[in-house]
């Protein structure tokens, strides 16, 4: 109701002091700049502490690393994004003994039940945060939001050159404020809760397992 809006804004305008002297704000303490190796190591250590499985591999070896992960589990399928570079690479060399690749190609209205029934998914990432140990995901039309949420196992592929020191750095260097997408996600591990006696338990409503393949070199 517009009258509520006007009433609230009028009260707020009357309430905010007009002559308030603005105190200078403390500057953000400069973050220590880490080398790529240090960033990979820190992110790995932090994310493992949050029960993510982190595999450091390279551009040549990551497909084999992935296949090893998949062969060690019995999965009913792997949800993937066929239109991404990652998806095309996967589809080009898929082995018949691996869980079938299932493309996220239809709108959620047509595919919701299937999305909630599939065991695993694989997505790319926008980057990572070394200081806290988290992945940055920018879901898009090709790689939708539920991919990293509905399946119990989420596998994420991270390019080591895209790991930032901190969230503040990621925002500043990539100028997020000029190009925020529909949804930005930071993910630091499999879903968890401590709501019963503060006992930390993994795998609540989101994925029970998170595997990160870091492509370093």
């Amino acid at each position: 109701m517009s009258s509520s809006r006007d009433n609230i804004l009028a009260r707020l305008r009357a309430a905010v002091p007009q002559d308030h002297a603005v105190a200078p704000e403390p500057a953000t303490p400069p973050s220590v700049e880490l080398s790529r190796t240090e960033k990979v190591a820190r992110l790995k250590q932090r994310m493992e502490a949050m029960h993510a499985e982190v595999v450091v591999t390279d551009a040549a070896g990551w497909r084999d690393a992935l296949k090893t992960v998949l062969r060690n589990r019995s999965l009913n399928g792997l949800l993937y994004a066929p239109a991404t570079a990652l998806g095309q690479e996967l589809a080009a060399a898929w082995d018949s003994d691996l869980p079938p690749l299932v493309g996220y190609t239809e709108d959620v209205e047509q595919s919701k039940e299937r999305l909630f029934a599939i065991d695993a998914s694989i997505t790319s990432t926008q980057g990572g945060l070394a200081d806290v140990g988290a992945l940055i995901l920018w879901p898009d039309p090709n790689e939708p939001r539920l991919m990293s949420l509905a399946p119990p196992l989420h596998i994420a592929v991270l390019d080591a050159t895209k790991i930032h020191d901190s969230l503040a750095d990621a925002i500043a260097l990539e100028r997020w404020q000029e190009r925020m997408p529909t949804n930005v996600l930071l993910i630091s591990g499999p879903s968890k809760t401590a709501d019963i006696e503060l006992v930390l338990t993994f795998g609540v409503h989101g994925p029970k397992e998170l595997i990160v393949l870091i492509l370093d070199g």
Partner: protein
Amino acid sequence: MASSVVVDFPKNFANALSNPQLRRNLRAAMDTLGMRRRAIFSDKDAFEALRAQGDAIRQRSLRQLPQLLEQLEKKCTENGIQVHWAETTTEASQICLSIIQSHHATRVIKGKSMVSEEMHLNHVLEEHGIEALETDLGEYIIQLDHETPSHIIVPAIHKNRDQIARLFHDKIPNTPYTEVVEELNAIARKVLREKFCAGEVGVSGVNFAVAETGTLCLVENEGNGRMCTTAPPVHIAVMGLEKVVERLTDVPPLLRLLTGSATGQLITTYFNMITSPRKSGEKDGPKEVHLVLLDNGRSKILADPELRQTLKCIRCGACLNHCPVYTRLGGHAYGYVYPGPIGSILTPQIEGLENAGAMASASTLCGACEEVCPVKIPITHILRRLRNESYSKTDSPNAVKGHGYKSNLAESLTWKGWALTNSAPWANVLNAKLLGLLGSQLTKLSKVELVKNWTQVRTMPKFASKSLHALAKEKGISDE
């Protein structure tokens, strides 16, 4: 709802204190939360620097609150998010209800939101035949038991695993009794997964809203918040209007302070930033996103420079975890949605001193809350202000609602007498003589109604027939 209910604080407090199970559950949990927070902020200087930054950001946001809210509205609208303004909780609930009804929806899934508790939204929706299911594990547990949250971060912390095991066994069909936390968790996961798939409208809170970009930020660990804001075709976010910040760069320090203070985490499992509904070509996400901005007395709080500090709060719950009173009572005894130190300063300002003023006395003024507050809210100063205003009527336009509700002749005369005997030597001598003469007769006063409230938990002093001063004088000790 709460405002129409008379809260019997002394009875609530007595009940809570005499419940050993509750006290054990709370003690263990609060100690753990405190320890985790200390571990994450072990570098004192770094923490103080971060805290100064958080305080400054929140102060700047509040100074520009009307402009930032207009900017937020403009940005959200450009992005396709529909913005609604509500002066009262009733109005906010009505807005949610009409959005839900316009979609003929009956299955609502909810992420954790204290503002929705403040609105008593579930109650309103249920009255209209709409199922509003809490999906945060803690909230799900207490909803099964028809309770309200006892803590703003860990809502079911007053219950232990045996109680939850019994509850699940009794309330969820075909559920075997188990006290294994992982199994209890798996039971809830199974029940709620079906609900996420079937939910027609998702409701969530907002931790920070960024005016610059029109972005709604949500902090969580379980993934239920993401489910509620991603899976259903409609998402309604409800937010106290003080939660807006100016820039995206304001978010990282506040996020760090929030997760560290709340649960001792560097970052939560998920940080979810929502800037628009599903765009053309995108395959999932809600097609409609609504933002409901709730005032409910906040604009009045903003007017007073001291009370305004209350609105800096980022709802981390650290003040609860470190409060010697909260730790012994838990949240329910306070009788209102927001318990603990922050509740004790926020609630009386919203509900009026005449209703909730007693909350301001549920504190020892030890200052632990202030020491841990990540945005430096002067909680004890505000508590004292509320106590003072409870007794004194003032003409100030910023006076708290219900000021002077406790003012009475007997008490003001007592304090006038107290001031006199401690400032005028003759009055002091007279007073000592009188007390000496009456001596132990005074204990009878403890039967008098006015004194009884005080003496029921304290021993009435007995006065010696001669004061120390007089005895010393008799012995010839010089008092100079």
